């Protein structure tokens, strides 16, 4: 029988399904009899859902970001080939 301490330490592994079958069964049994640990698990699960939901849209690079990166790399090429020292961009 798992203690609350052991369950709390294993919440993320359980949530990520990174756990042996028999231990999963023990976790489920513990949640069935311990509402505090069940609430710990439910709120942790929802925290991750909320965070993923907020960050589900792909990030778009700002306009000009690619061009500025290319410029920085071109200046580095010049510098590495002994060209004039580049100005900081």
């Amino acid at each position, binding site marked *: 029988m798992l203690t609350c301490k052991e369950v709390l330490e294993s919440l*993320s592994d359980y949530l990520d399904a990174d756990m042996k079958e028999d231990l999963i069964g023990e976790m489920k049994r513990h949640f069935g009899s311990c509402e505090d640990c069940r609430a710990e698990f439910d*709120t942790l699960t*929802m925290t991750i*859902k909320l965070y*993923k939901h907020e960050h589900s849209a792909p990030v778009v690079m700002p306009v000009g970001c690619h061009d500025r*990166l290319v410029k920085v790399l071109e200046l580095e090429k010049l510098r590495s080939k002994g060209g004039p020292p580049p100005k900081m961009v």
Partner: protein
Amino acid sequence: MPAVTDEELVRKSKEDDERAFGELVSRYESKVYSLALRMLRNPEDAEDVLQDTFLRAYRGIKSFQGASTFSTWIYRITANSALMRLRKKQLPTVSIENADEREAPVNIADWTPGPAEQLLNKELQHEMDEAIEALPPEFRQVFVLRDVEEMSNAEVADILDLSVAAVKSRLHRARIKVRNRLAGYFSDNAKPKHRAMGAH
């Protein structure tokens, strides 16, 4: 025609093929920027990290041994560059190894009923952003790579040069810290039911 592999582009880049390196930049710039922005939460800082990352990659490509994939290597440079910036900005925090250890559950309010999108309003988003910003940099790295970029524990361990056990430990503690912040928000702003008190 099959796409040229990263390995092939790396090999050509080592031979000073500028177009090959340019192709690697095209393939990874968005991913690098995205990771940097999610770690730093500031577009200017993210762009600085993007430039720093590819400058380091350009300078280091000839010594890249290929022990890991190019993607792991470029993410490692990104994560380290972002970490340096975070450390400069953040005030000293408590030791990350012994934070938030608890023996037993507290009587935590259950605010979970209902779908995530119904809970997520501007105020909560702000609360969550602040919770992420308050994470120690080493926690934030792991949290973003695992829960946002959805990499595996093994990939994150490889990128951050940590053991899988250390990744799992940091991830769990980061999640708990963010959850506790949200729990505080809900206890102040919502009407949760307390399971342990027996909701009727």
